[in-house]
């Protein structure tokens, strides 16, 4: 699956799609493939303040529990309610329909520290090599 070039990425495999001080946050295709079939999502309510690097929710597969870390600080405007009934969307469309939350960025400049798609793809390619070594 292609990694959108306009997104920014974290080492913990979240993506951020920012525009005009707002951002959508999700987990990457690599993250969903590592997790397997997603069966449960827990997300914060609107109004919740996210802090960079702090856990703000969980995504669970049959076998694993994953914490989701905020790639940037900000206030939650909306959580993706569709995912509660259809968590498997995270497997089928991780970079699109399966966004987790929309936030109002506290400091958009924070995103400059994150990886672009090329850097992220190189990062996960290196991880793959490490695992099969």
């Amino acid at each position, binding site marked *: 699956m292609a990694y959108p070039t306009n997104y920014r990425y974290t080492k*913990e*495999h*979240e993506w951020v799609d920012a525009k005009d001080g707002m951002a959508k946050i999700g*987990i*990457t295709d690599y*993250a969903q*493939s*590592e*997790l*397997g*079939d997603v*069966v*449960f999502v*827990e997300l914060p309510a609107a109004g919740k303040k996210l802090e960079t690097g702090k856990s703000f929710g*969980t*995504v*669970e*597969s*049959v*076998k*694993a*529990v*994953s*914490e*989701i*870390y905020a790639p940037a600080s900000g206030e939650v405007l909306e959580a993706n309610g569709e995912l509660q009934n259809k968590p498997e969307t995270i497997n089928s469309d991780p970079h699109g329909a399966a966004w987790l939350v929309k936030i109002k960025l506290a400091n958009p400049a924070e995103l400059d520290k994150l990886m672009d798609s090329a850097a992220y793809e190189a990062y996960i390619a290196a991880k793959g090599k490490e*695992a*099969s*070594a």
Partner: protein
Amino acid sequence: MESVTTPTTNSDATAERSSELRKTSLNALHRKLGARMVNFGGWDMPVEYPATGGLIAEHKAVRNSVGVFDVSHMGDIRIRTGKTPGGALAAVQHLSMNDASKLAVGQAQYSALLYPAGTFVDDVIVHRLGEDDFLFVINAGTREKDISWVRENTKGFDCLVEDLSDAYTQLAIQGPRAVDVLRKLTDANLDAIKNYWFTHGTVCGLPERLIARTGYTGEDGFEIYMPSDVVTSEKVWNLVMDAGKEFQIAPCGLGARNTLRLEAKMALYGHEISEKINVWEAGLERYCKMEKRDFIGRAALAKAAAARTERTLVGLEMLERGIARDEYKVFDAAGEEVGVVTSGSPSPTLGKNIALAYVPPALAALNTVLFVEVRTQRVKAQVVATPFYKRAKKSAPQAAGSN
């Protein structure tokens, strides 16, 4: 995202890097199939095969049709008699809690090796290969411990103990169509093999292979024991996959193995049973024959039977949103911590979140409301009947008497 995979075994002997992990003869094949591999008790094993559908599809394949598992990491110990007739049987009776004298040649039983305290060294399947010839199939993570335990505790008996763990590639073919798949590959009369019985026959052109109607899924199925060289192992795997094609056979990993056995309430070492849990607590009294005069652990179990049990294993179903996981704490309605989850997972068959947990007997009654601490929240659950899943009895031969 940071993943915490639910631990699936006690991890004594866990090497850090995959290069240090032990591998079955099918390791390269699993990787070629795109399996996601995990460290399972020191073994590099497939947890699921995403390319062919992944865990939930594998689970459903076994419940509805057929799946195949590489379980070559399991250990095998053969105990044969020395010069004295009855030497091996006497040793097996001393070592294990079930009554092996009740086994006919060609029959197997669920049993366990116990410490003198009546707690678990491991659970085992005991196969009676001959009058005085037994095969124990043991867990992967406890192999070395079990083998030294067996050697140590059979010293006073006239028997030969052989570690055959590396001699077999063991495949579990499981599901209602398992019999149809295996029938295409063997000359053995499978219909004559009842649940927890076995035979020897030609499988995939290889003569005298052990074929047992056993498994760890709560479904009908077979386990076959093949030579462990890579060429033969891959050939057999591929023949099984070809034979199963018309039934949409799925290669299955340890993930589905765990959800299948949990639904069927089969114990997993390091979870429901361990060196800290005794037979009564685990609810395995059916397989523990106190009428046998002597076996390791018997005296302590006799004493424990007279005393009050402090905890007992119950099934839980989550009533509110949240998945109970291994080692999560259990609370009563008053907010007192009363127990712990030993295994918890979504149940692909039931579409519910289920768990096994140890709680005081006073809280073990059906429909008792309990709470499982899931991260920061206490999520409502209730005690339900187990096993969570039981296959419908069909024309397929069932166990006669004890297993």
